[in-house]
């Protein structure tokens, strides 16, 4: 079979008909044999990637506000990984995005209390089930006093890293699992 094919090629080469100039391999790799079809494929692929990633996998966000300072600076760009909690539950210390009526506007907070735990603040320190929580990400001291709050089986306690403002001015509290959109990526 190989010999027959080889002979055929030799015969073609010997004929008077000049073969059409073949495109260089770089050209073939970059734009394919049919540039029009390649362009259409690229457009469709890019559009699909944008839709899938923007909506269902990685949601791009811009941080606004001071409640997560100094960990996240104002106007910083980041992403929310929506698949992060498909296989496991949110963990203590995770920075998560919490949806409002949709995902156009989301809160960015840190998980400090897990389902079933009791969270309280005394002299600015967070206590979980009566034990002091080590929070190396908190760089500012505060004097927050919050009464004990027992979390339900599907509830998480979320708070920002910036504790320099009065507790009443800081958006924090309890959210059910379905409000957590995903984990902040960077």
């Amino acid at each position, binding site marked *: 079979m190989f010999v027959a094919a080889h002979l055929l090629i030799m015969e073609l080469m010997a004929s008077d008909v000049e073969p059409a100039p073949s495109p260089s391999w770089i050209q073939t790799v970059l734009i394919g044999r049919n540039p029009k079809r390649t362009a259409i494929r690229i457009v469709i692929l890019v559009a699909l990637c944008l839709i899938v990633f923007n909506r269902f996998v990685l949601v791009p966000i811009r941080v*606004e*506000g*001071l409640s997560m300072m100094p960990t996240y600076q104002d106007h910083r760009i980041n992403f929310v990984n929506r698949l992060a909690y498909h296989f496991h539950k949110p963990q203590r210390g995770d920075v998560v995005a*919490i949806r*409002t*009526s*949709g*995902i*156009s*506007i989301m*809160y960015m*907070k840190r998980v400090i209390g897990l389902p079933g735990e009791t969270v309280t603040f005394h002299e600015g320190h967070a206590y979980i089930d009566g034990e002091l929580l080590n929070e190396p990400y908190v760089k500012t001291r505060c004097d927050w006093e*919050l009464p004990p*709050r027992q979390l339900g089986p599907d509830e998480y306690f*979320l708070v920002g890293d910036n504790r320099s403002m*009065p507790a*009443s*001015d800081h*958006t*924090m*509290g*309890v*959210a059910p699992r379905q*409000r957590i959109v995903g984990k902040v990526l960077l």
Partner: protein
Amino acid sequence: MRRWLWRVLLAGGLVALGMWAWTALFPSPERVIRKRLTELAKVATVSGNEAPLAALLNSEKVAGFFTADIEVNLEVPGRAQQVFSGRDDLVQAAKLLRSAAGALNVEFYDIIVTVGPDKATAEANLTLVARTASERDKIVQELKLRLNKAEGAWRIYRLETVRTLSML
């Protein structure tokens, strides 16, 4: 083959045009409510150099989006709870806010509308984002609105805040 393809494309285009015309001429209640709430956000926005007469007219326009017996329940973190009823009180509050804020930009995001089985009542959940000239940070607040349809127009009869993160 080509003629056949053109016919299919033309038929598809006509069907799409027909569907667009149908939705434009007979919009669904959800779409009407969404459009009306977007209008409300525009009317509630105050430019910094608004003339007193324009401010008065816009406050009256805001009133047109609510029923006469509107009930308002506002619970904003760090501020005292405010409960009031009646369109006059609401207009008065809107006027005070307009004069105090100077400039106010109001936007509604993620408007989710659920129309009741009677097609005459509806509930809308949305996120209000407001920015005033005096405050550095945006004000973000989830709201729940209840609307009813009277005399051909959807009007809000109950407005309440929703706590995204609850402390209770």
